[in-house]
């Protein structure tokens, strides 16, 4: 029991903020997995007679302009949010991890070249890039993922590069080298495990950002096609009728707020536990 308390999971469970975060995230994952079961209505079924219905026992979060059940659409939307967030973060994280380590280990010219790429990608405004790509590519989740990957891989790359640079000349690495450790051993046994901590903190912090980007693009009409039950599309539907039926936009914003809080709390809790300096300070 004492040993468990000193594991990362044990330490997280002892942190109330982390517990709240994990409950929110677990709730979202459950809703996404069980969306078909818990949805009281077909998310795409139109019912013009009941359109703009306020929240009620029949329609828990009311209906939209086409009489579609808002709760059912948000439940389905959680799948889209998770899909986009996990796919985009995994791809951009993987690219950033590889390029960051190459930059950290590579010769100076390669490091500078990759830094230039990171800075260029980071400097490009997400929405402007999204607008440009939306004009060139078909609307859909893959376009959203591409936008997020292009604008966020550099963040991972920079973090991993910095970590790699500081580690590669650390005494224990030099000692390993002196003992004849192979390059692969140094990378996979020493550098990578030490890089993963900050990497996962960044990934956790980025998940809600990605979800918000998807919602933002859909809100602007450059994300998923109309009819797709993404959270951003629900916000857009709600905005169009905000004067008369504010519950649609309120319901659309609620999961975004919760998920942003959940992943941000988790990221902060992870940082508190994985950053040695912060742990010492406690």
């Amino acid at each position: 029991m004492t040993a468990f308390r000193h594991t990362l999971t044990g330490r997280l469970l002892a942190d109330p903020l982390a517990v709240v975060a994990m409950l929110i995230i677990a709730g979202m994952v459950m809703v996404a997995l069980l969306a078909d079961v818990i949805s009281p209505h077909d998310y795409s079924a139109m019912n013009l007679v009941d359109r703009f219905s306020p929240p009620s026992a029949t329609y828990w979060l009311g209906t939209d302009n086409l009489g579609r059940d808002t709760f059912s659409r948000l439940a389905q939307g959680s799948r889209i949010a998770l899909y986009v967030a996990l796919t985009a973060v995994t791809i951009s994280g993987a690219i950033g991890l590889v390029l960051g380590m190459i930059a950290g280990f590579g010769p100076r010219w390669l490091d500078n070249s990759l830094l230039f790429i990171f800075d260029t990608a980071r400097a490009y405004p997400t929405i402007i890039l999204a607008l440009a790509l939306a004009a060139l590519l078909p609307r859909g989740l893959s376009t959203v993922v591409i936008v997020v990957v292009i604008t966020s891989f550099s963040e991972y790359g920079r973090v991993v590069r910095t970590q790699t640079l500081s580690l590669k000349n650390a005494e224990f690495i030099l000692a390993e080298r002196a003992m004849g450790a192979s390059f692969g051993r140094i990378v996979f046994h020493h550098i990578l495990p030490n890089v993963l901590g900050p990497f996962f903190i960044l990934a956790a912090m980025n998940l809600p950002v990605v979800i918000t980007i998807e919602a933002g693009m859909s809100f602007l009409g450059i994300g998923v096609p109309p009819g797709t039950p993404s959270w951003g599309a629900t916000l857009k539907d709600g905005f169009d009728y905000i004067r008369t039926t504010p519950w649609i936009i309120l319901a659309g914003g609620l999961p975004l707020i919760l998920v942003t809080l959940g992943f941000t709390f988790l990221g902060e809790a992870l940082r508190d536990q994985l950053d040695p300096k912060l742990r010492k300070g406690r």
Partner: protein
Amino acid sequence: MPDLKLQRLFPSLTRRQLFAGAAALGTVSMLPVAAWADGTRLNVRAYLEPDDYDPLDASGFLEELLYGCIYRKLIQYVPGDEWAWQNDLAESIEQTSPTTIAFTLKQGQMWSDGYGEITAEDVKFSMDRHMVEENNSRIKPDLGTFTHVEVTGSHSGIIHMERPFAPIWTIALPYLAGTVICKQATEEAGGKITTAVPPTVSGPYRVREHRLGERWVLDRNPEFSGEPADFERVDLIVIVDEAAAEIAKEAGDVDFTAIGPASVQRLGDNPPAGTQLKVHPALFYHWVGLNVQNPKFEDIRVRQAIMHAIDVPSIMQAAFFDVAEPATGIIAPGLIGHRPETLIPPQADFARARELLDEAGIDRLDINIDVLNNVTHTTVAQVMQAMMAQAGIDLNISVHEGGSFWSLGVAADGDRWQDLELTLKRFSMTPDPYYATAWFVSEQIGDWNWEQFSSEEFDQLHDEALSETDPARRDEMYRRMQDLMEESGGYRFLTHGVTANLFADSIVPATRPDGLPLVQHFRRA
């Protein structure tokens, strides 16, 4: 404590100076409010923005909104509820034969910025240039059988037509193609007005600046030869989204805007304080077009199946909130050529659609519709998507911003026009049926005829109807043309909609009978 913090931030700032600064800031911030509050400024919403100030590039009412403020014509529409025209630059203008119109300009009508008096040469230059092939005028069809202007004096001329052209008084002269621009200034600009602000204007307002994607700022033109404009400044503010425009009106950011059908009943029953709502029957026509040349729709049964699977009453209810009626064609009620009913009833017939697809040997049909990114059209598309699924048709919706959307069917803008499937569009209209059918002749394929509909009979009727003077015969011809469009399977007519204008009590708006604003005639209340 707060004072200590302030002193750290601004070491030399005393309390007195702070109050004085705040007072000064407050006074400065009130200045524009004061200018606005005295009613000398007018803010009008524009739903898109034109490319430039040259009528050669004009495409519809949006340009007219701007051009009406800065340029003049021989004649102009009279604001009100009845279609009529009145002299503008013309002192006199009359039809002297079926193919000629003689005009005399008023004396002393001036161009701004030292470009002198408006002459018959300017009129000739402005109209003749639309007929030059290399100029690629997009509104050339507005001029029908017009051939040229003959200048007979510094202030007089004769408009010549190849054959009689009935709509010259309702379309050509009082609308876009009749806009008179300055010959000298245009030639100095290289033959086209693409400058940041026009070098000279003749209308009641002049352009101070164009903030791309945001607004035009117009000032009263001190050199205007007519009755001075009532407002010192007019801002044409670009707000694409109807809901956003409505919020802008209620927040006081615009004085005049058209609103979407969703708000008509609510605001009609309970208009916000200091605001009025006026609803006009519109002439616009919204329709679902199908590219008949796309190999996917080669079989007419497939095209007919798609048309049968579109339920117009549901669209009226969901997207137009039952404030508009289903259309029977592209010509609105009250105009020559209006059809009493469509060939395919507005109600969907899913069984018939399924039957036609089965006959064509199609189990599932995947099709795409391109729509503008506005709430009405995206709602229409979603209703269609749900309805079509009942007939085994999977409809994918592609949403575009204005610039991207309006280039989809244009051959000069790429190859996409050939691959188009379904499109949902709205065209503006003038009070003559010629203006509606002009865009669907074979010659317009690759420009405005995105359906690539081509019918010899249609083209011939269109050509004959523009010279036909017997209203009954003309009516029959335009009805037949709409029958041909529908028979092709390329068109499902939706509605003409309504134009609902929300405006501040402090202004007296001027509109055409279809509700479109004539900003140059707006007055303070």
